[in-house]
């Protein structure tokens, strides 16, 4: 019966279906597919401004000899390797604590920890820049409670500037990831935890042996989202360092370097496009690795 119906008006269905998706697909083709293909083409070209000529692999060779690019790549990877695991773990711990129905003030804690997601990337970067000024509130608090003897040069020391960027992103995105875990935990049968508790499984073991394996698909999803986000990091660094990625390129990211190559220095679109493809390749590679890693452990 169903088959007959389908055969009868199948074509009619089809035309309508394509009509519904056509505007979106057209826009995606024009503003995603076409530019990404063009950008690949550009990456094999070289020249100033709009006068470009074919340059083969010259841009790729140039990458290896460009200390600023190497710096931007190292910084971006540092943010990724250090920040993403810290944030995911913190979000998981917070979610499993807040999943306890007997916790008093659960909603309040949840709202508070989620609140940073509401702030715009620019606004919070600007706030952090003020809070972490040399004589600012963070340093004076740290000194008052005796954690540090002299103010930490958050914005002027290469190491601390990176720490500040990592702290800032963690502040902004932990609650976001936590919400995903909380929602996933809500779907897990509570009795599994009850049984484990009655059997005397300690809280930490319940976390590592129950929560993490059960949440694996969501963890994979949030890890890939965070990877894409971190590899594209721009707004925060731009606004914490007046667009320079300083001190002396210590916080420079790939996106910021592309921006500088295109809009700040003498524009070299071909080379900038090559750098942008490094991000494309990294995102694809890391998403693949993460996906594969999550799959392997299933067996």
């Amino acid at each position, binding site marked *: 019966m169903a088959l007959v119906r389908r055969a009868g008006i199948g074509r009619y269905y089809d035309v309508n279906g394509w009509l519904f998706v056509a505007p979106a697909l057209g826009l995606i083709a024009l503003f995603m597919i076409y530019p990404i293909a063009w950008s690949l083409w550009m990456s094999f070209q070289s020249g100033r401004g709009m006068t470009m000529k074919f340059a083969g692999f010259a841009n790729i060779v140039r990458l290896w000899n460009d200390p600023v690019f190497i710096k931007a790549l190292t910084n971006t990877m540092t943010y990724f390797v250090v920040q993403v695991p810290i944030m995911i773990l913190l979000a998981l711990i917070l979610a499993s604590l807040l999943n306890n129905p007997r916790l008093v003030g659960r909603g309040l804690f949840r709202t508070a920890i989620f609140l940073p997601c509401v702030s715009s990337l620019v606004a919070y970067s600007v706030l952090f820049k003020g809070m972490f000024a040399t004589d600012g509130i963070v340093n004076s608090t740290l000194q008052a409670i005796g954690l540090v003897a002299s103010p930490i040069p958050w914005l002027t020391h290469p190491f601390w500037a990176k720490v500040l960027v990592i702290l800032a992103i963690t502040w902004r995105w932990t609650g976001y990831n936590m919400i995903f875990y909380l929602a996933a935990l809500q779907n897990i049968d509570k009795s599994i935890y009850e049984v484990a508790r009655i059997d005397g499984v300690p809280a930490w073991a319940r976390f590592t042996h129950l929560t993490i394996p059960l949440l694996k698909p969501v963890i994979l999803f949030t890890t890939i989202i965070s990877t894409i986000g971190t590899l594209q990091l721009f707004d925060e660094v731009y606004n914490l360092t007046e667009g320079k990625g300083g001190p002396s390129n210590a916080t420079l990211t*790939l996106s910021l370097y592309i921006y500088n190559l295109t809009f700040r220095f003498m524009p070299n*679109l071909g080379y900038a496009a090559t750098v*942008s493809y490094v991000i494309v390749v990294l995102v694809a590679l890391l998403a693949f690795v993460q996906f594969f890693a999550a799959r392997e452990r299933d067996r």
Partner: protein
Amino acid sequence: MNGIGRFAASAATYGFLGLMAFLSIFPFIWMVLGATNSSIDIIKGKLLPGAAFATNVGNFFTLVNVPLVFWNSAKIAILATVLTLAVSSLAGYGFEMFRSRGRERVYRAMLLTLMIPFAALMIPLFVIMGKAGLINTHIAVVLPSIGSAFVIFYFRQSTKAFPSELRDAAKVDGLKEWQIFLFIYVPVMRSTYAAAFVIVFMTAWNNYLWPLIVLQTNETKTITLVISSLASAYYPDYGVVMVGTILATLPTLAVFFFMQRQFVQGMLGSVK
């Protein structure tokens, strides 16, 4: 576990959560306090309300054409939201309702575009907009975001819950496909639209990199761009900057508190 151990554990839990909640909220408190203090006091880390609020607000309104900047931000955010919801919900509905093998392939390919980093698009997009003569216009800011793979995905997922009996009944009544979409689907799915609205609006309101590239004169700039340039001045007036960040955060904060349920639902849309 004995009583003391349990007490210690729950004290540690509350202590940890309390600290995290405090750290999460503190920058907001600091922002509000900052708006009442002078720039020097803010940088010195003063934690009490000051008397400079009126001065800061006054300075902000002298430095910035507030109504214009707000209008620019609102125009971009509303235009982007309405167009994205219209185009992308249409596509999400289309992908779910009219399945065929070809369309599934296209859908999967489309989802791959979620992985394309914006940094790889911005140079060609800038050149395209330049050729179209759209640099420094708001339409150039909005155009690239309308066909959103994420929103299409969200609508397709939500459409799975749309009762197909409604569609069959409407068809019996002689409604055309577009009428079914407009008069049956849209009203039935209004909570999905609300959740998507929140997410798209917030993203558009807070968008930074692309507007930074495209909008080049003060007449077209958004609140986000204005705060950024105020704060990157050689000697930024932090009191003024704080007033700006409050004004930029208020709309999104309001959306969050009034539509918290849809907000969370929208964020989670992708993992259902």
